[in-house]
């Protein structure tokens, strides 16, 4: 039985309520590298939840495990951009060095090596996580060093600091990234304007949500403000899980004050006293700095009781860490996760603005949206509205990665063409660009004059470039694997359909595909698109549809000419029987199947 005193100390850092379950599990995982037997029952007892729910939550999040996974758990980021930089080969190299199979724990319990979904380091990949800490720019030399450090049992704290360096790579600044460090200026302005006027300025600014969906922010805040109830919540969605997106990471690393200022402005506008920053588990390394910033803001009177001396303006922020689940980027799944549960998207209506966290009115906004809201509260909406295009006011941060000379963060006024971005980032041989990640769209070079904005190419920010050496089938296949891995499993079409899609892509990849399989993929799309519970399932077929449409030869050169072919080889399946019976005549073969 593990140390109960230690567990009690850990538990005491959290309210002993079911809502704390995920945070407690995450911290236990951090200490023990898994959730040891017995501890799960102790947690269930302490938080007043059934043991099966503790195990259910532990089994939902990729970074939690009820089984030991080694004292060192190495997870290679498996986004296509990491693969393009050689991550697969490096994982094999590390496994070879450690005498290990991917996905298995070494016999001495020292180490396991596996893959994880995009860790948001696409501009400085290949990347990996060791016990949850991000390592960037992995090279074969670095792999050798990591292998040595693991074999020597060196604690992570003694690993070279350079391994953990994460750069901002800000390549182009505009309105938002040129703003000064925000310590109260927007809040002072917002207090002077008053809540209604803040929302009116937001309305005038035309600000729309930056997480991809583009819902008008003013309308969301006004609806939450008007919703019945006396407790309201502000949630900052920093669960930046869309592969290829990393702009929120940079905002949280270098503009945290602006993010918190935006949350506090939102609290003023809707009348909230409690805020949450939902930080994706992959960004755990940012936690200490973010907590420091929160402490400084409390000391400066920008958080806590009577903010900026205004009696009754009380608001504070708690940071909640995710634990490896892309679906929690969906706002209602995020709220479930905040409540300590499995991250399953809720049925809507009702919407979070009326029934959010603990069924109370809740505003959930993207990191970038809240930053922009702070700027608008300070400077007014008209100036913001003057930038961009008719339906897309202001600027957008793009996370540029892939085949280009200068990957990183680019801030543009909306309306910028794809071609312009490609020129600026030094992508001279672009074949395709994946806009807004796997759930977005893939466009080919004939469409590079299309523009970023809600009128044309809406985006959460990912901008992955593929040059003419890339195989777009493999790009799509990577995304299909991603969706199958990240499906929450709630609804039938997405749970089963993403796996079936994965199997079809594997069949084609292995040279067993036919035109019939392309039709099957289209059929799956109709089911996922039509019947899925949330956006994950709706968009899970986009990568295949887009690439079949634009890069059909990448599929066709893999297809058999037959209309149908089973995924297994009928005649080959009889080989063992032929061997056993010593027969090899015509009657012992199956021929001419069609």
């Amino acid at each position: 039985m593990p140390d109960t005193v230690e567990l009690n100390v850990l538990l005491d850092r959290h309210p002993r309520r079911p809502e704390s379950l995920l945070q407690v599990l995450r911290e236990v995982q951090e200490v023990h590298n898994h959730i040891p037997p017995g501890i799960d029952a102790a947690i269930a007892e302490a938080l007043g939840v059934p043991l099966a729910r503790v195990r259910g939550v532990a089994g939902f999040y990729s970074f939690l495990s009820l089984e030991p996974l080694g004292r060192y758990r190495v997870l290679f980021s498996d986004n296509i951009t990491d693969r393009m930089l050689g991550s697969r080969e490096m994982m094999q190299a590390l496994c070879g060095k450690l005498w290990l199979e991917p996905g298995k724990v070494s016999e001495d319990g020292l180490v396991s090596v596996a893959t994880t979904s995009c860790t948001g380091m696409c501009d400085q990949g290949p990347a990996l996580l060791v016990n949850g800490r991000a390592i960037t720019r992995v090279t074969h030399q670095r792999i050798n060093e990591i292998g040595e450090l693991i074999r020597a049992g060196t604690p992570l704290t003694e690993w070279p600091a350079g391994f953990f360096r994460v750069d901002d790579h800000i390549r182009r600044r505009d309105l938002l990234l040129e703003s000064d460090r925000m310590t109260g200026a927007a809040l002072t302005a917002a207090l002077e304007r008053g809540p209604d006027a803040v929302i009116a300025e937001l309305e005038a600014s035309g600000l729309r949500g930056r997480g991809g969906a583009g819902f008008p922010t003013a309308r969301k805040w006004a609806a939450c403000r008007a919703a019945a109830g006396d407790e309201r919540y502000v949630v900052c969605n920093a669960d930046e899980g869309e592969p290829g997106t990393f702009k929120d990471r940079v905002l949280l690393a270098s503009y945290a004050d602006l993010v918190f200022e935006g949350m506090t402005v939102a609290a003023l506008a809707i009348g909230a006293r409690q805020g949450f920053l939902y930080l994706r588990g992959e960004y755990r390394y940012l936690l200490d700095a973010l907590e420091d910033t929160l402490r400084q803001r409390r000391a400066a009177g920008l958080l806590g009781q009577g903010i900026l001396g205004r009696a009754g303006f009380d608001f504070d922020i708690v940071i909640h860490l995710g634990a490896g689940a892309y679906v929690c980027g969906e706002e209602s799944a995020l709220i479930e996760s905040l409540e300590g549960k499995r991250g399953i998207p809720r049925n809507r209506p009702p919407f979070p603005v009326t029934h959010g966290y603990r069924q109370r009115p809740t505003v959930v906004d993207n990191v970038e949206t809240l930053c922009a809201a702070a700027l608008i509260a300070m400077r007014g909406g008209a100036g913001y509205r003057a930038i961009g295009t008719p339906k897309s006011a202001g600027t957008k941060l793009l996370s540029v990665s892939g085949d280009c000379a200068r990957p990183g963060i680019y801030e543009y006024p909306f309306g910028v063409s794809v071609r312009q971005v490609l020129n600026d980032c030094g992508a001279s041989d672009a074949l395709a660009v994946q806009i807004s990640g796997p759930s977005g769209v893939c466009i080919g070079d004939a469409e590079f004059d299309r523009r970023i904005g809600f009128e044309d190419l809406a985006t959460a920010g990912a901008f992955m470039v593929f040059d003419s050496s890339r195989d777009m089938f493999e790009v799509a296949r990577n995304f299909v694997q991603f969706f199958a891995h990240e499906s929450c499993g709630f609804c039938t079409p997405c749970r089963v359909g993403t796996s079936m899609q994965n199997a079809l892509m594997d069949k084609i990849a292995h040279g067993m595909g036919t035109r019939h399989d392309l039709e099957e993929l289209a059929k799956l799309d109709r089911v996922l698109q039509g019947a899925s519970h949330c956006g994950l399932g709706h968009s899970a077929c986009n990568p295949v549809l887009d690439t079949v449409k634009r890069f059909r030869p990448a599929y066709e050169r893999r297809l058999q000419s037959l209309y149908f072919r089973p995924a297994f080889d009928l005649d080959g399946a009889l080989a063992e029987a032929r061997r056993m019976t010593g027969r090899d005549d015509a009657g012992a073969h199956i021929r001419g199947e069609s």
Partner: protein
Amino acid sequence: MSETFLLDGEDIPFEPGQTVMQAALAAGHYIPHLCYHPEFKPHGSCKVCTVKIAGRYATSCTAPAQAGLDVASDTDEVNELRRTLVQMLFAEGNHFCPSCEKSGNCVLQALGYDLGVMTAGFRHLFPDRPVDASHPDILLDFNRCILCELCVRASCEVDGKCVFALAGRGITKHLIVNAESGRLADTEVELTDKALAVCPVGAILIKRQGFAVPIGERRYDLSPISAQALADAPRPPSGSQPCPSCEDEA
């Protein structure tokens, strides 16, 4: 006079707060469904009850009924989608109707017949799911579980025990039971639990009762599931002692 909406061209009356499914069933109109149960709050996971409302797909068990809706349910397009979903559920688990005690009483099987599912449609996944026969009176055969969560909901909302829960994610999602050992015998489950009565398939079986009613004389042997809409009209739960820790969810 109550308000109405249109279902396949017919007027369906509804009471405020009802969903499209509840109103349809109460009026004797069948919409295929699996995870919906008349005594529980719908949660909409199986998606078999998908309909088209004003040209857009919607989950009829969770979609609020509203005056003037134009709902299309029994159409070739929607039924084709449902067939695919049923095929997916068959492919996901290990379902062998000829050797299953639930045959004839199984909602999945009945839907397969009723919707005219004639082929497998997908390459079956043949997952490895050991059975839990630890309990002297109850067999848990996870091979047949379709993850409808009815036992989960019934155990928490009605039995007040939370014997069942879900673990895993995506295609690895699976049913677990609330015991340190992970075995049903070590849970608080009792033969009288609502959770045991709501399983639509053969995942939860009472031992030694399998063939008390002969095959051929069972519920869906006698008449197709689509002819039994009224049996699933909404009704209050039989018994109610919500689990204290789950009250917020009930």
